[in-house]
């Protein structure tokens, strides 16, 4: 295979890894975002945490693998983004570790102030991760200033614009909705009824933010639709995305929440796909439309490394998918609290 084909193939694999991460960690982050709002008792809060207890750790391995693959296959993009977004990445690490600590810590001592502190940090960590990812995605969509060597040439505050914040909040609402549908599958009785109300509220919030973001993108980020002019067939993805979003209330009305969960997963996959399609062939878009961005061809490793990596993926990914399905099958069904739950 020639170098350009390998680069495009690897760009696709990165997209798959990101979709896997966003769908899987998306619902457990969403559970953390809803945690302060829906439950009325401590027992309800424990049900929430135990719904994701055995799963979140494995979900984060997708992020680790995405990071490792970016380093290996696109080292120039990895170096530019990770050093350019230094403070954002440190905040992300802080949020990821904070929520892990909060989950383990809150149950270790009695009730009262102790648990309220850890409930707050659990919420902040869970909401912070999608907010940061969304802000980063918004900033990358608009493009960032790059110097001649391909290093980030902007200031820290350039990364926070109204547009990037909008994308950040949309991501938070998307994951909250995704998490609420997951919780609907995992809870029963009164708690499930309250979760059900929040499925509608988060869906409404997401729908509003989605429409605003879409309009804002079309007006503010003309570069985002360049590829859609050139490759008309790409329009099928936003169309499918709208159908997937529309199918969420439909499935809920029909009392088939599992289909609603599949639909919100498809919607997340569509967002990642749209993001990748809008960037292509850039890995990092330059803020100045005249300047050359960091394309996948310029950011990539040598053909030899891309080929070695491809063989690893062909051998490894089927195993990974098999483990993941096996774990989710083992932990299907409603949450039951025991003496030694979180």
């Amino acid at each position, binding site marked *: 295979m020639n170098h350009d084909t390998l680069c495009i193939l690897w760009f696709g694999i990165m997209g798959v890894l990101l979709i896997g991460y966003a769908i899987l960690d998306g619902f457990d982050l969403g559970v953390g975002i809803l945690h302060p709002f829906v439950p009325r008792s401590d027992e309800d809060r424990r049900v929430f945490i*135990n719904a994701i*207890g*055995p799963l979140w*750790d494995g979900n984060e*391995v997708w*992020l*680790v*693998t995405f990071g*490792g693959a970016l380093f*290996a*296959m696109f*080292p*120039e993009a*990895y*170096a530019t983004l*990770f*050093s*350019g977004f*230094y*403070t954002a*990445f*440190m905040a992300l*690490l*802080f949020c*990821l*570790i*904070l929520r892990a*600590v909060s*989950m*383990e*810590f809150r*149950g*270790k001592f009695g009730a009262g102030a102790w648990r309220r502190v850890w409930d707050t940090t659990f919420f902040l960590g869970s909401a912070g991760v999608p907010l940061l990812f969304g802000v980063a995605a918004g900033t990358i969509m608009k493009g960032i200033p790059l110097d*001649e060597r391909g290093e*980030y040439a902007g200031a*820290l505050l350039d990364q926070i614009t109204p547009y990037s914040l909008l994308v950040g909040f949309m991501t938070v609402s998307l994951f909250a909705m995704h998490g609420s549908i997951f919780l609907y599958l995992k809870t029963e009785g009164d708690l499930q009824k309250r979760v059900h109300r929040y499925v509608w509220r988060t869906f409404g919030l997401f729908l509003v933010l989605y429409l605003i973001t879409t309009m804002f993108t079309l007006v503010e980020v003309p570069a985002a639709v360049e590829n859609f002019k050139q490759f008309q067939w790409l329009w099928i993805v936003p169309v499918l995305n709208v159908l997937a979003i529309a199918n969420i209330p439909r499935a809920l009305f029909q009392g088939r929440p599992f289909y609603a969960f599949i639909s919100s997963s498809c919607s997340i996959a569509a967002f990642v796909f749209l993001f990748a399609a809008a960037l292509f062939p850039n890995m990092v878009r330059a803020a100045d439309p005249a300047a050359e961005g960091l394309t996948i061809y*310029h950011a990539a*490793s*040598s053909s*030899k*490394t891309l080929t*070695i*990596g491809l063989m*690893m*993926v062909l051998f*490894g*990914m089927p*195993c*990974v998918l098999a*483990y993941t399905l096996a*774990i989710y099958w*083992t*932990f299907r*069904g409603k*949450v*039951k609290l*025991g003496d*030694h*739950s*979180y």
Partner: protein
Amino acid sequence: MDVVLLSRLQFALTVMFHYLYPPLTIGMGVVLVYLGARYIRTGDPLYRIAQQFWTRIFALNFAIGVASGIVMEFQFGTNWSAYSRFVGDVFGSALAAEGIFAFFLESGFLAVLVFGWDRVGPKMHFFSTCMVALGSIFSSVWIVVANSWQQTPAGHEVVPMMRDGQPWIVNGEVVMRAQITNFWEVVFNPSTVNRLSHVLIGCFIMGSFFILSISAYYILKKQHVEFAKRSFRGALIFATIASLAALFSGHFQAKTVYQTQPAKLAAFEGHFETGRGDLSVFGLPDVQSQTIKGDVAIPGGLSFLLFENFSQSVEGLDKFRKEDRPPVMLPFASYRLMIGLGMFFIAVTLLASFLAWRGTLFDKRWLMWVFVIAVLGAVAANQAGWVAAEVGRQPWVVHPPVHWNDDGSLVVDPDTGKVAYDETQGLRTVDAVSPVISGEQTLGSIIMFGLIYSLLFLVWIIVLNHKIHKGPDPIPLARGSGRAKDVMDTAARRPGHGDSLTDTWMMQEADDES
């Protein structure tokens, strides 16, 4: 503020915290395989109870290892972007292999290991135990491969980066990077095998001393005595073999270091002047006067260890330009700490083995107390070894090759009499840091990591303490009928959803009570 120094401090802080956990999981993984195999062979429920207890602690260590491991992977990009650009093509393959093969293998089968006691049969469970142990060893393989490549690069070439078919020139300089030419030469670079075996032996020492410590505590407190004695005896055999093996593997590794990184070995030994190598046992190296203060040395000891000859000349730090020399104090001290602790492990495990043979081991309360505390020595030895290896590599992050004459002396520049490294083949640490980050940003993140790791460490101690006080499950009354009971019950049970990653024994306990 100095971004390079701050970034190095941050890397040291985060990697030293992270490295508390992987050696424990690697070492304990092997013990879990042993216990699982014994259970399948004998059907003795005590082995199953022991395996369940140690699995809970294993899962706790694993969870913290994952949380702190993400930080390591991100930091190459955030703080060391110039390094990432230079080595990504070579180093990245190892890291990606680690993610795809090791991490998914570990975390996938860990779920079966932790939550699947009643979901799968004993053989499937044993298979999962083997896969988790293999996965944790795999992850150490890839990361040590990547680190060894930095010490002794091979299987690559340093070439210009191409842009549209032309070498890419920025500010009048061609941008260079290392590109892979032979994957297996990268994997089996000159130091991989020696370093990997030494690292794994270090992990085995850590895992076995961890189990010895908790078992000795139970024996002293007269709790769960039968369980504790059996765990202690098993771990003691493992610890004795590993301690002896560390001595031999360390010896061969030191010889490789001299061949590939002679400045590093000279720093380990405080060997300032080329000539007969004395082995300094105590003392404080002083770089100003190029001597060791208060030196107590074995004359010719270093020459003997390297060449089996007490008088042969050993190349010293004087063969290197000042800017090419590593710091001496830290490698010298941490190298000695590691070896001193290694000798202590050999002495204390041999003594305990002798007493076990005499049958009086568990009466020696003072020795049990020594074992309770000795795990801290195992932690310190593992950390000190890495400090020596990494600080000794300075001022390089990717060490350029050295060349030898046939008479066993270094090839030097005839004008200066010093080694002239080929700068293009290596990368200095000062050139490896991210050019776009500021000292304030780095200081801020160091403070953040300091706070959150203190919290994480506190969680670990509290949960570990909780688990140790809770102890293993009680032994079923009908000894020897364990296997039939488990097979019968497998169909009736299904894992509870109320379990956290680290608390999973409620099902077993409820059944044992009924």
